[in-house]
């Protein structure tokens, strides 16, 4: 349903247009939960924002069911706004501090002029039930709610207009560990129950195993590996994916805090020849600095990786 083709998004930084998302291909199918994983600053949120038209690509297209999202006007745009909704990272910032839960949930219905007054009230009650919130909370304001409750409200608000595609931008990062689990269960349930497509953005791979159908790993604006969840988790091929997996704190393993990856991802202004990961890559060799690895699909059709080591082995 959602298809990104060679999408490139750039921002003016220090007086020039710097690409932060570079030639990204991505697709989400109906009923599928695709996790997009990478360190902060790698361009995940920009992709999400481009899909919901908060940013515009300078090249490439985003399309929903074949229609170019950034060319939509009038009624088609209205329909798109209902079809695609987003849940933001920090529910405290994405909800109005002055709106009660009931008003926040009714807001999208007002905006799209859906239903009568009574129908809206019924829908609000329905939404609260959908996200497993006590109906007694309807009159509360965000500051009177816990983090988990707030994020449930934000999810309910996104679902009010019955979207087909849900974009979740690190929806649990701002929450306590035990609360994260409950919100993740809710998201997975909703995706299954309502048959939604879901683009789920995360900065670590810890939660992805149980949650996602497919995973795409991103580094400095590019997808570097994508595969069905189990394949990716159990046999990661890209050195960056391997490093992300090793960084997850595990209870069973030897509790040594040895960092798996040195340094930080260079900012968007730095120019790196060849593979963007080569300054940090433990497996880099001479070719990595000379030439950028191409994305190679295979061995299965929904697996792909961009790394010279892998390409060597496949060749």
């Amino acid at each position: 349903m959602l298809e990104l083709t060679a999408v490139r998004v750039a921002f003016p930084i220090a007086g020039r247009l710097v690409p932060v998302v570079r030639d990204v291909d991505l697709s989400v199918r109906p009923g599928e939960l695709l996790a997009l994983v990478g360190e902060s600053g790698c361009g995940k949120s920009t992709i999400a924002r481009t899909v919901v038209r908060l940013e515009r690509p300078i090249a490439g297209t985003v399309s929903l069911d074949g229609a170019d999202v950034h060319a939509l006007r009038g009624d088609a745009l209205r329909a798109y706004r209902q079809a695609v909704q987003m849940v933001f990272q920090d529910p405290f910032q994405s909800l109005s501090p002055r709106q009660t839960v009931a008003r926040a949930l009714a807001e999208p219905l007002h905006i799209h002029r859906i239903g009568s007054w009574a129908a809206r009230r019924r829908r609000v009650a329905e939404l609260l039930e959908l996200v497993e919130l006590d109906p007694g909370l309807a009159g509360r304001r965000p500051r009177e709610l816990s983090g988990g409750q707030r994020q449930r409200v934000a999810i309910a608000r996104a679902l009010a207009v019955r979207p087909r595609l849900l974009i979740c931008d690190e929806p649990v990062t701002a929450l306590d560990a035990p609360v994260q689990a409950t919100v993740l269960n809710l998201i997975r349930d909703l995706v299954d129950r309502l048959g939604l497509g879901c683009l789920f953005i995360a900065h670590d791979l810890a939660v992805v195993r149980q949650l996602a159908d497919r995973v795409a790993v991103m580094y400095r604006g590019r997808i570097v590996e994508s595969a069905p969840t189990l394949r990716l988790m159990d046999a990661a091929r890209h050195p960056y994916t391997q490093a992300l997996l090793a960084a997850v704190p595990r209870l069973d393993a030897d509790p040594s805090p040895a960092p798996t990856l040195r340094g930080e991802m260079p900012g968007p202004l730095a120019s790196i020849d060849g593979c963007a990961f080569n300054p940090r890559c433990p497996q880099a060799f001479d070719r990595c600095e000379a030439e950028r690895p191409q994305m190679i699909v295979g061995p299965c059709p929904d697996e792909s990786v961009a790394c010279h080591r892998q390409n060597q082995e496949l060749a």
Partner: protein
Amino acid sequence: MTASGAGRRRRTVICALPLLGFVMAGALAPVIAPYDPIANDLMASLARPSVEHLLGTDQLGRDQLSRLLYGAQASLILAAAVLAVSVTVGVVIGAAGGFLGGWPDRVALWLMDVTLTLPSLIVALAILGVRGHGSANLVLALSLTGWPPFARLARGRFVSLRRSAYFDALQVLGASRFRILFQHALPALAAPVLVYASIEIGFIVLSLAFLSFLGLGIPPPEPEWGQMLIDARPYLDSALWLALPPGLAIAAVVLASNLLAEQFATDDLPLVRLGLPRRRARMNGSTAGPYRVEELAVAFAGRKVVDGIGYRVAPGRALAIVGESGSGKTLSTLAPLGLVDATAQVSGRAVLGQVDLLGGGPAIREAVRGRRVGVVLQDARGALNPVRTVGALLDDAVRHAGGVPRGLERARSLELLTMAGLPEPESQVYAYPHSLSGGMCQRVMIALALAGEPEILIADEPTSALDVTTQAQIHALLADLRESTGMGLILISHDIAAAARIADDIAVCYAGRIVENGPAADVVSRPDHPYTRGLLDAVPSPMAVPGTRFRTLPPAEPARRKVGACAFAPRCARAAKRCHVEEPPLEPVAPGHTSACWVRPTVARPIGDEGA
């Protein structure tokens, strides 16, 4: 959570009182004034203050109290008119600029800048000179230069709104600009505009008095404070009571609104929260022993949020305090340092070396902060003063910690930054915090905390806002530092998996109490308390079958906690009858491992044993 928070609120209220009095006096003048303010009574001219005329009468026998009250009314009406015009013009210009951006914004900014360079009183004089007296001209004269602050306020709010997640969310929902503007943006502006308007009142009252003084204000005989002062001038020797009340009234209103402005302007930079000590006083008795906190209780308005917490950290050891937010982790570590709201009632003992930090006044706590105890907070960027370079911040901390000769601070700063693993410290000292990544800000924060060569380093959720790869790096750094410096480390975290990675011991905190405490490996592999089990279950397992649900704890109970019961009972799958009537104490379950639970996981305990 600043120590000065309550005091500051109190000062704000005190400053606002005269303004409130002024507004009340003006609004209620017709009701409370005992006489007609312009009725002459030459028989009673220049009467001293008495029961009939509380503030005396002027040369025409008019009651001064009534004139003062009606004067307030006149000033109030004019001030309201000036504010109404200034706010409308300012908000429209500022909001248009901030909301639309681009060239409208540039025009708005230019207008503001130009207007701000005009001297307001001279502009007012010019206008009144050209157009003559009269209330309308007065309002015009004062509003013409009065709008820019409101424009700035509106612009600032709208610009930040345009960049907020909230604005994005509304757009994604499909809200029109019109709707965003009128339903969301403008109502949010009401409170700050009101605050700022109260500050402007002082300036307007002063300007009016000044213009009256020049004969350009409200024409007599209408009462006006400035005019009253002029009228009183010939009688300064004989009838001081004429000049005093209007003079004091003007002074009070102007002073109050200026102080109020200062209250709102003082930005208490969070660095103050770190408590870099202001006084230099090396404490003696820093013999390395464990840091012991015992029977710590913290209450707000009688409600206990930390209730009898105890923990100990030996030099070179790492203790992790784990629990969900609101469980009291932060308070139980920062309260002994005096880093809590002044309204907090703190009791208990916190023994560092020979000193009980809670055994005396604030000076004891102040002396250890930033020196014997270092603190690292979650939001490093927010805690670093944005207008100082990394080097300047470090130099300050080094100077405060003492022990480094003047002029050599920079060398020590570089050493600290290197210890904290900041790459290229020689060039980074010239960077401002906002240009650093979250991980690098956290390293700067750690370097700051190390400046005093602390015996104890408290890290409150130091990595919760960071990427996993950066988290792993910061954890490794903290572990290294603990080893190389021999300091004790207290790590606060909501993530038990992260805690297990660096801590020797784990204390699990629930509802203001420690419910389980023991060696990290024990707690993680053989948890006793159901809450600890719940926390461990919620950690995503690398072996989990894809598509299975995450294991969760039942949600927290919003209800008030029952006294004399296990606080966890409402969420506990294991709860027995006893749990609802008696609170379990911390008791040993294995060597060095304690837990507060009535029901043992495997061996059931006999009800009513002698343990309690």
